[in-house]
């Protein structure tokens, strides 16, 4: 079989495996070799599982030999962000506090991928506990952008995005709390979707901010995005917030047609700090869709401009509560030099958490503390209501809203390390989506200095189908998804 199997998309690999032009083991071996060849430079993975991958691939080949009916992802190598539980396989959240944690159960999405007979090649690096926009906050090492190794891959799912872009997996799962799938997808030139809140079970996703977190796919094209969405979506009795609604066959949305589509372009998402070349690429993408029969109109969403402060109150508040469980008692690190139980908690957390995580726990604890709750947390929740209302109103008029995914292309490693505010601006266009709970997708729409630019498309709650249709149409008329970084 052809070499470079690792360059193919999930659906192309699936076709080869099903038609027996390539065995699942050959495919898995191709990705294992690819990881060996490039991961020393890209550093996408915290843990790789080559033996497991080959074993799973053998089982797929056996099933095919026995004539079993298999789904479209059978034998396709995927990667999983290291904040999703994988039974018996290290799950660290890229934090020293979980350096040795081996879960005793699988996250719901991991089980679903196993049911689809996906081959898992490894666990990808992230900003510690998914807190960050560059993967520089990983407690272990920095991941490099495959398009330019001196640049960040974005974050927090930077390992997943880099692994897909560098052909170290056919697709990956990420999690998105304020842009953590879409922004790294944008920086690495791949497709990333944050589904509607509740579309995908969060059971076994190590929680950061529970009202915002959502798992979704990072893929090489829109077709693969639909296939992975089919595999992971749906009600799960173990996650009370997963929605009990029918899951459509998302591949039916892969239709090249945007005639009559109404596009809104909210000006607040092109605010100060937006790179003119990014804006130009996004405007050109909108023009392309218009030339294919869509209509667009500029619009305004005033409270979207308040997304950052709302997010930086709500997310830390929820994280300060969620991360209370890391105390050195049941798993992970325990400080060795403690005498009583309180100093054990305090020293364990001091040694185990990195600076960004500590800072967010502190902000959240403060925002929730007696006397300040109303001024910060309650106020932020109320502005969140206004923001949701503005999205609802916008979607009465428009089918989709289109914006940049991030105001800039990937920045340099270390470039913004001392300017946390500039770093947070990288998420200014993605955060409102999480606050409103709606779905959004990022796909490549251009380049600046050889670095990919991301186009963000948003739709109303549970309307991933329209996102996929618009993204698919755009992809059919462009070649960005076919370009690959030179490694």
């Amino acid at each position, binding site marked *: 079989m052809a070499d470079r199997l690792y360059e193919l998309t999930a659906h192309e690999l699936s076709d080869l495996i099903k038609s027996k032009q390539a065995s699942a083991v050959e495919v898995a071996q191709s990705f294992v070799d690819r990881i060996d060849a490039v991961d020393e430079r890209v550093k996408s993975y915290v843990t790789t599982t080559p033996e497991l991958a080959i074993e799973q691939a053998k089982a797929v080949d056996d099933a095919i030999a026995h004539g079993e009916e298999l789904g479209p992802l059978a034998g396709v190598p995927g990667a999983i962000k290291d904040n999703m539980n994988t039974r018996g396989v290290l799950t660290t959240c890229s934090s020293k506090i979980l350096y040795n944690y081996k879960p005793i159960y699988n996250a719901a999405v991991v089980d679903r991928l196993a049911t689809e007979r996906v081959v898992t090649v490894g666990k990808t690096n992230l900003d510690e506990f998914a807190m960050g926009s560059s993967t520089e906050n990983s407690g272990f090492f920095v991941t490099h952008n495959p398009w330019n190794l001196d640049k960040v891959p974005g974050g927090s799912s930077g390992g997943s995005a880099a692994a897909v872009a560098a052909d170290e997996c056919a697709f990956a799962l990420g999690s998105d709390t304020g842009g953590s799938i879409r922004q790294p997808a944008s920086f690495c030139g791949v497709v990333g979707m944050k589904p509607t809140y509740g579309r995908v079970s969060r059971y076994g996703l190590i929680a950061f901010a529970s009202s915002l977190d959502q798992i979704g796919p990072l893929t090489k094209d829109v077709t693969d995005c639909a296939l992975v969405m089919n595999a992971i979506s749906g009600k799960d*009795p173990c996650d009370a917030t997963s929605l009990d609604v029918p899951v459509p066959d998302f591949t039916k949305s892969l239709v090249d047609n945007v005639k009559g589509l109404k596009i809104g372009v909210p000006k607040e998402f092109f605010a100060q700090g937006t790179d003119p070349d990014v804006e130009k690429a996004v405007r050109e993408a909108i023009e392309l869709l218009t030339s294919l029969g869509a209509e667009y109109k500029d619009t305004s969403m005033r409270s979207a401009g308040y997304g950052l402060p709302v997010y930086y109150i709500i997310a830390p508040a929820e994280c*300060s509560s969620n991360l209370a469980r890391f105390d050195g008692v*049941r798993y992970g690190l325990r400080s060795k030099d403690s005498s009583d139980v309180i100093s054990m908690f305090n020293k364990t957390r001091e040694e185990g958490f990195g600076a960004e995580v500590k800072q967010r726990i502190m*902000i959240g*604890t403060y925002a929730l503390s007696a006397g300040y709750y109303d001024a910060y947390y309650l106020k932020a*929740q*109320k502005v*969140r209501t206004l923001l949701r209302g503005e999205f609802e109103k916008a979607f009465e008029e428009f089918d989709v809203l289109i914006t940049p995914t991030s105001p800039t292309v990937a920045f340099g490693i270390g470039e913004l390390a001392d300017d946390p505010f500039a770093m947070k601006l990288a998420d200014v266009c993605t955060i409102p989506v999480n606050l409103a709970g709606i779905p959004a997708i990022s796909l490549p729409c251009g380049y600046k200095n050889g670095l990919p630019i991301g186009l963000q498309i948003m739709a109303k709650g549970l309307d991933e189908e329209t996102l996929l249709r618009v993204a698919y149409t755009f992809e059919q008329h462009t070649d960005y998804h076919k370009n690959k970084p030179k490694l």
Partner: protein
Amino acid sequence: MRLSKEDIESVAYLSRLELAEEEKEKLTGHINRLLDNFQMLQEIDTQDVEPTSHVIPVFNVFREDVARPSLPADEVISNGPQVDEHCFVVPKVVET
């Protein structure tokens, strides 16, 4: 509202974090900068606006009260830094 180093120490204690001196300094400046930024929310009139704690209309999700197998105790404690006879061992909590 600006936080002093003492405020930071008290929030750190509530957060169960034992911060080094230089961390305290750094966090004080940083958190104050963020709090200044949060002030922009006061520009927005939120009188009579209900807070959003969750975006989806799902409440009280129940299931049938049917017993299911639990995780085996051996596995549950397998990640514990210090365990003994199916228990997590911690420093003494209650004075005798």
